[in-house]
């Protein structure tokens, strides 16, 4: 009996050394594969964009030219459109996201939190292309008929910021793209805010309530200062997502290669330009190389924003 129970242990121990090494190696190899993937992505995009960088130099980034006939390409307009729509989307989304997160953590009765929270998170699950169709067939006409004429009449005449809201109400354009983007990033920002708001130790909030503070004062004086860094991290995460959104933007931005002073004017973003023009580019052409160079620039933009976001959210990641 005794020898029987000892034998298998010995046997396992001998094989376990090898099994453990192999399994650990496989896991590590998978991890390194992920590193290689991102590294290869950067290098491939850069190499493919090299002919464009060579042909136009650093001016590629600032040039507003996009002329396939004369083979003159520049990234200026699409970089402008990418940044304007993404930033405007954040400006629109942050107050909404804050409201949702505040409602879910402090105001809503417990039974309501889960269904409402899930519903808002489902906004993040709706595919990009659906936002595009909805934006193109529902939002753009509504903007063209009602929203934009009203804004043009009422805000277009204001000093200083009025010029942003002038021009014809096309319905599509930078503003509509930013509006759709705002809805798409809202759930990401709201979910991060809700999670970090929930991490505030209850005793801090209770102390403030004990001093007679109202719910808003607790939010303003305790919760927001305590979570400030993570909240900014959540906003940066939303910004990173907004920069690279493709399909939804392609539907509603108007796709014109010019910088309009008005937010209602048409424009394009890096992602929308690549999606639209890629099919019409020949293999080996300077245009294709320019599009891939645009991809490289987009990668740099989103990498910086996402890395910052992750750095700011590191305390939350550890918790």
């Amino acid at each position: 009996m005794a020898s029987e129970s000892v034998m298998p242990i010995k046997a396992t121990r001998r094989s376990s050394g090898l099994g453990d090494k192999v399994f650990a190696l496989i896991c590590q190899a998978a991890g390194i594969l992920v590193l290689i993937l991102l590294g290869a992505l950067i290098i491939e995009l850069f190499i493919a964009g090299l002919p464009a960088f060579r042909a136009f130099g650093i001016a590629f980034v600032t040039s507003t030219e996009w002329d396939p006939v004369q083979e003159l390409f520049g990234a200026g307009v699409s970089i402008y459109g990418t940044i304007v729509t993404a930033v405007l989307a954040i400006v629109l989304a942050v107050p909404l996201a804050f409201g949702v997160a505040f409602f879910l953590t402090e105001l809503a009765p417990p039974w309501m939190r889960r269904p409402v929270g899930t519903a808002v998170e489902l906004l993040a699950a709706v595919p990009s292309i659906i936002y595009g169709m909805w934006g193109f067939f529902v939002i753009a006409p509504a903007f063209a008929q009602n929203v934009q004429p009203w804004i043009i009449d009422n805000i277009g005449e204001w000093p200083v910021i009025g010029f942003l809201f002038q021009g014809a109400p096309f319905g599509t354009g930078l503003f509509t793209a930013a509006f759709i983007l705002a809805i798409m990033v809202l759930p990401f920002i709201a979910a991060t805010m809700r999670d970090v708001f929930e991490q505030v130790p209850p005793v801090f909030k209770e102390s403030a309530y004990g001093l007679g503070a109202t719910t808003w004062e607790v939010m303003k004086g305790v919760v927001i200062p305590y979570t400030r860094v993570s909240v900014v991290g959540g906003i940066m995460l939303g910004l990173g997502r907004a920069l690279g959104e493709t399909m939804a933007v392609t539907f509603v931005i108007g796709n014109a290669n010019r910088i309009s002073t008005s937010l209602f004017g048409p424009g394009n973003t890096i992602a929308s330009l690549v999606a639209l023009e890629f099919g019409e580019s020949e293999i080996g052409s300077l245009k294709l190389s320019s599009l891939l160079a645009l991809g490289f620039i987009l990668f740099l933009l989103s990498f910086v924003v996402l890395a910052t976001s992750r750095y700011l959210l590191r305390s939350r990641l550890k918790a």
Partner: protein
Amino acid sequence: MSLSLSSMPHPGPRKDAAMAARLGASRKRADIIIRTLCIAATVIGLVLLASILITLFYRGFDALSLRVFTHITAPPGSEGGLLNAIVGSLIQSVIGTAIGTPIGMLVGTYLAEYAKDSWLGNAVRFVSDILLSAPSILIGLFVYQILVLPFGGFSGWAGIAALAIIVIPIVVRTTEDMLQLIPNTLREAVVGLGAPKWKMIVLVCWRSAIAGIMTGILLAVARVAGETAPLLFTSLGNNAWSTDLSKPMSSLPVTIYSFAGSPFEDWIALAWAGALLITLGVLSLNILARTLLRSRT
């Protein structure tokens, strides 16, 4: 009480009863205004979701008929369906997830069990998080460069590769999170019985975390099923019936994209039907994943 207050040197509002009442009222008012705005923000969020769903049902339901599931895409005006797009999407999403999931699970296991705080582990975690939020169109361009250009054209395999790269970081995140929830005492118990580490991970840790990992896989399927941008440059789309993975392959999102942008009424109607199908599928997968996770935790 009032004695000690009045003996305090600084002139607080409490000295003036009317002023105190005014201040109290304005604080309450600010609170009520902010509360109302926050409720309004939540209502706006819900209304937007409802608006999307209502639009999809309103426009998509009429166009949804048996023909959509039995016929393949056809030129405008000739009674086409979406069969090839639906099948193509299913094939690419399922195989893409099947390839991405094991890699993602191994990476997540590496991060949770082997490299909690090593520099390599931190680097992998960082890169995986970047990949999770990186623009999916770039993954399409990348796969175009490495699989489409050198191997002579668009193919279902290239689409699958792009989707698999999107799946990996999603599964990494959930696997690592779920493995971290497992108490160390369980690991110690297994090792204490003399089991090697790999058996501890495979037979105990993975099994305890299976509900969470399944959630991640379902969310990954839901995510890739709706991806359009990466497929534009990889599997391209195909209007004929084809299950050959070495040829261009149709997919629902890409078909919706080209149909919705067309000037033909029947194509646009089909695009709405496809949009309804894909959204219902993706949202039900999401809800299923959440219920699965909740029932186990």
